[in-house]
């Protein structure tokens, strides 16, 4: 392909892509961003600014949070929205910088693989979490666990 179009070439209409995918992506980036602001600021505040901050976080701390459906839903929403928002953002960046078809294909393949693994794993972790695992040292467990 020559570097610039022939200046005398008649205008040729681009074939439409027949989908509004990019428009929905654009709207989603903004809607999810607004929700993520609340979810992530809340997450960071509770985990870093209450009690002794990072020094308060351990198994019992998380068990206490995930004992309530409230924080489970909070974390689940945060996981899904952040991963879709971030993956869509990276897709745009790959489209911008990887100009070879093959490179783009490989990078996007890796991106979607990472997305699937992380979302599935993170979702399973929330749903299969057991705050009082049998056989664990009692002093590591939250206080509401029945005495062994």
């Amino acid at each position, binding site marked *: 392909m020559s570097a610039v179009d022939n200046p005398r070439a008649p205008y040729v209409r681009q074939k439409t892509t027949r989908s509004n995918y990019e428009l929905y992506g654009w709207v989603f980036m903004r809607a999810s961003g607004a929700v993520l602001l609340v979810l992530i600021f809340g997450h960071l505040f509770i985990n870093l600014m209450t009690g002794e901050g990072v*020094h308060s976080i351990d198994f019992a701390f998380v068990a206490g949070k995930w004992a309530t459906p409230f924080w489970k839903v909070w974390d689940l929403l945060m996981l899904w929205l952040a991963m879709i928002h971030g993956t869509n953002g990276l897709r745009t960046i790959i489209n911008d910088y990887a100009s070879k078809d093959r490179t783009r294909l490989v990078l996007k393949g890796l991106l979607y693989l990472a997305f699937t693994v992380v979302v599935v794993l993170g979702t399973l972790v929330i749903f299969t979490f057991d705050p009082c695992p049998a056989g664990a040292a009692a002093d590591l467990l939250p206080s509401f666990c029945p005495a062994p």
Partner: protein
Amino acid sequence: MPDRPGGTLYRGREGMWSWVAQRVTGVLIFFFLLVHVLDTAVINVSPEAYNAIIGTYRHWIMGLGEAGLVAAVVIHAFNGVRLILVDFWAKGAKYQRVMLYIALALFVVVMAGFLPRHLMNTFGGH
């Protein structure tokens, strides 16, 4: 895909730099999140294993990393709100530069509230 010269030297003003910052911080947060979901997943291995993993977050080097991460999240979020307003608010485009400085001012305020407490938790006697 376009396969032609893209190399005009475009040096925009604040608008371009805030766009670069939005990219860089977005990518950074994304890669943190990949690792973060993996470290959180260790919670289903055993309490001991999770405490060992999350215990590394208490090291002061990690503490500085966390401060950087929070800074990236806050700047990305506030500039994100600015972008939303530019697109959806009728006067958004007109005030885009003013809003960038408001976002930066809010960033400074939030970090001034966050940093002392976080650094005390990180470096305070434990």
